[in-house]
């Protein structure tokens, strides 16, 4: 019977995964409605069973191998995110490269990296600009033993913002917050005015006055070195009064060879790095990367060095990944979601074959409205649609119990949520399903006519007189094919919407087309889409609800909402000093309250993620903000 259940779940999981793969759309997500009230207490809760069995001690020397399974395709691309959109490759990039001056800590805060920096200074200049001067520690070395100096940091800034780099296909680091970026990037000058090399161990970055004040201004001091001797052999960095510049034969031909060469280029084969792990190889046929511990690594911001000797990162199929864990062909599956996968993983935990760590996602799934399109340009219509959906039941049915419903633009892993959970529960409208309230909202918004202009009869589609023309209350909805969220919405929404007097017209397409519609890049726009979103470490809602159209065209304000109250509420957060937590929280609560009233999205669920891993892995403390690539530093394996 148990085997039959496993076969059935395998087939079901496989069917769903193939349909998802075919649509290339939304990730599989899961919910736990029951966990809603206790979300804050369950974040990063390592399973009690695993904790009780934690008897292994952390070795002092690196040993063992860990095979990490990624449902995102592992590709041969290790320069940075500019060349590749793969989240797994970005995590490997983080493991290979290091020396960051500013880090995002385990507690979810930006902080200067004391392992790297001997000192740092922030100077407010007379012209309103701000200079970050940083001196790196002695003794930092590249993996080949050569010393890391300030030149390597300055070189990275100059290299990645240079027109020469763009010539070889690099999109550019676009560090346009620094003084002199435009002139340097466009090739008008060979010096970068906002970047200075002060001495062998000290450099400075100067931020434009118009970029200040800024809540996350510490992030302006983020810098990461590149090995100049490897990427631009024969070149040097020198400082002038107009900023730093690269000297020597710094050409696109040189970079084509040192970066883009398919066999030896730094992009595909970075041999000199300074992160916790070294690149050991990529098997193109097997889509598998191997990393070896870097014996010369100085430690992360806490001084922690990895003790797992070898990492193998390979692609796994969501259909069979739990079986791979059971068979021992992978040791770690991170951010698993979906009831079938989670239940299969929990079976392994129950059998003692695996252990688990669970945490809430830093994001949420949603119905996203286009607030520039009639009739969802009306907040009342958006609210009415929200009242037509039983979100708790949706989350329960969709997730199988591994997510919670959220009521505004926050994820359950966010510090802002955990700090304000009680306030949110008391002050936000939870939009419990209520068709009568939806009707009242629509009546008040003027949707009180029949097709012939007579007062609304109570059945059928409502109409509204708009500038002398009768307009029907039709909501157009675009969704991606093979998407289980769409399937469930299609069964739960239309009936209640029809009862309230709304007609829902659905169109199914692929993700690229859907994206075009969201971005107003094609001829067709829709009233709503179903999507999922995650929050960046420097979450910046003031961009997402800016009334300036350029933020809409660039995909930040993808709701295309022009609402001054929401723009003001989110904009008020931008200038709050990073240290002023109290003011930040107060502004955040106000923003969330306004957001909850305006309803640019209907939040549907915030997932509970599971990391499943072999019992040989110990000390695993991953969370939504402390990803697997960081959790690896504290973990160890017992063979």
């Amino acid at each position, binding site marked *: 019977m148990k*085997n039959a259940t*496993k*076969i059935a779940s*395998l*087939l079901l999981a496989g*069917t769903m995964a*193939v349909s998802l793969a*075919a649509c*290339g759309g939304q990730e599989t997500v899961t919910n736990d409605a029951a966990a809603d009230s206790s979300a804050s207490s369950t974040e990063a809760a390592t399973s009690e069973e695993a904790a009780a069995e934690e008897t292994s001690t952390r070795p002092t020397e690196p040993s063992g*191998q860990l*095979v990490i399974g990624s449902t995102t395709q592992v*590709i041969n*691309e290790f320069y940075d*995110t500019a060349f*590749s*959109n793969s989240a797994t490759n970005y995590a490997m990039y983080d493991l290979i490269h290091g020396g960051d001056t500013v880090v995002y800590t385990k507690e979810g805060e930006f902080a200067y990296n004391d392992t790297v920096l001997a000192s740092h200074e922030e100077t407010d200049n007379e012209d309103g600009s701000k200079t970050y001067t940083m001196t790196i520690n002695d003794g930092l070395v590249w993996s080949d033993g050569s010393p890391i100096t300030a030149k390597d940091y300055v070189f990275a800034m100059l290299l990645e913002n240079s027109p020469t780099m*763009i010539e070889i*296909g690099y*999109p*550019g680091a*676009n560090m*346009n917050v620094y003084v002199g970026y435009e002139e340097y990037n466009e090739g008008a000058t060979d010096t970068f005015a906002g970047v200075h090399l002060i001495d062998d161990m000290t450099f400075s970055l100067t931020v434009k006055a118009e970029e200040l004040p800024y809540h996350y201004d510490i992030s302006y001091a983020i810098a990461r070195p590149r090995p100049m001797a490897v990427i631009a052999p024969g070149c040097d960095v020198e400082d002038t009064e107009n900023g730093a510049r690269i000297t020597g034969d710094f050409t696109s031909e040189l970079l084509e060879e040192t970066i883009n060469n*398919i066999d030896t280029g730094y992009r595909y084969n970075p041999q000199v790095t300074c992160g916790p792990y070294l690149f050991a190889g990529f*098997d*193109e*046929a*097997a*889509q*598998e990367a*191997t990393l070896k511990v870097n014996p010369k690594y100085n430690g992360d911001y806490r001084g922690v060095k990895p003790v797992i000797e*070898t990492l*193998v990162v*390979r*692609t*796994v*199929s969501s*259909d*069979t990944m739990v*079986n*791979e864990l*059971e*068979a021992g*062909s*992978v040791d770690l599956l991170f951010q698993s979601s979906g009831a079938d996968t989670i239940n299969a993983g929990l079976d392994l935990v129950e059998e003692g074959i695996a252990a688990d760590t669970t945490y809430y996602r830093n994001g949420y799934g949603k119905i996203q409205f286009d607030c520039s399109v009639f009739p969802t340009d009306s907040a009342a219509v958006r609210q009415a649609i929200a009242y037509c959906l039983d979100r708790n039941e949706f989350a329960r049915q969709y997730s199988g119990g591994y997510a919670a419903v959220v009521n505004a633009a926050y994820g359950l892993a966010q510090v802002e949520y955990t700090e304000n959970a009680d306030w949110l529960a008391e002050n936000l409208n939870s939009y419990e399903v209520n068709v009568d309230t939806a009707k009242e909202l629509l009546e008040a918004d003027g949707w009180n006519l029949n097709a012939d202009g007579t007062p609304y009869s109570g059945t059928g589609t409502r109409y509204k007189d708009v500038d002398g023309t009768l307009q029907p209350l039709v909501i157009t909805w675009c969704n991606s094919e093979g998407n289980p969220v769409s399937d469930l919405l299609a069964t739960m929404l239309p009936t209640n919407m029809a009862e309230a007097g709304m007609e829902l017209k659905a169109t199914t397409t*692929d*993700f*690229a*087309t859907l*994206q*075009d519609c969201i*971005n107003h*890049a*094609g001829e067709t726009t829709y009233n709503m889409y179903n999507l999922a979103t995650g929050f*960046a470490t420097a979450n910046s809602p003031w961009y997402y609800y800016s009334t300036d159209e*350029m*933020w809409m*065209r*660039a*995909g*930040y304000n993808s709701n295309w909402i022009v609402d001054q109250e929401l723009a003001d509420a989110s904009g008020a957060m931008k200038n709050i000093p990073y240290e002023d937590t109290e003011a930040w929280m107060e502004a955040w609560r106000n923003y969330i309250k306004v957001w909850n009233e305006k309803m640019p999205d209907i939040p549907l669920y915030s997932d509970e993620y599971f990391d499943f891993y072999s019992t040989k892995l110990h000390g695993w403390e991953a969370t939504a903000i402390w990803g697997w690539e960081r959790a690896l530093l504290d973990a160890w394996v017992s063979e």
Partner: protein
Amino acid sequence: MGKGRYLVRRLVYIVFVFFIISILMFFIYKSMPGDPVRMMLGDVSQSMKPDAYQALYDRTYLQLGLDKPLVVQYFIWIGNMLTGNFGYSTQYKRDVIEVIGTPMLNTLMLNAVSMLVVFAISIPLGIATAVRKNGVFDKFIQVITIVGYSLPSFIIALLLIFAFAVKIPIFPISGVRSPGFSGNGFEMFLDTAWHMALPAIVMSISGIGSITRYVRAEMIDVLRMDYIKTARAKGLKEKTVIYVHAFRNALIPIVTIATAWVVALFGGSVVIESVFLWPGLGKMLIDGLMQRDFSIVLTMQMFYVILALAGNVIMDIAYTIVDPRVRLEN
């Protein structure tokens, strides 16, 4: 008309059809909704200011030559294609020629093995069932082959994984090689062959089912012919009658199928590649379409067009080999 003249005519025809299809393909794909530049840049927009993103977008748009009229884009593309420049992959941000080789080799390897398995099993099996028509053995094989080609390969794959990789772990679940594999060339070959076993079996099952039935039907028809009766009346051994007289005459339709299979050697299966994580051309084509990576998609499509057209010529030539009565001018 001689064989050479026929081949020249077919060659001209192939070139003509190639260009017609290239025009159709190019304009159909280019008219698909979805912005390749936006897909290429991905989430970059979320890490830069709108004006910087717009500048990057415009620059990329120009670099990809999308500012030119479609007709001009076509001529640039076909010109490059004919000189061996297959373009730039917006998905992998590398030249197409650099990313297509490994998946092609993976697909070719898997398909070649499964084709060998299919023909090695189905031809003798088809003949054996035809000879034992309506016997217990024949009926048993009929049922098995119907099940074989009726079940979706996706279901067969998951069932075999559960049986032979999870419950009785004699094969690996997925992948091309063992994680972190190290060893010499021969050990690597063995490891890859071990990983190839399950996907090759799954790919073979439906092929064996359909081709066995096909061979059986053809053989049954041929075995009814007068010349078979004559051969038997002459006192020839049954094996000679079946394998020399009957099978050779049943070969023409089988050649049609076999040629199609050879062409299909380069056609990847999205399902098999996804379930077994065998990175091949099937998944690459689908991913390319989803990502609007037209350079990859068009390169692969035109490759398949050439294969299909060449396959037809090879098929015609093969007919003349298996049946001397067939003349190419006919």
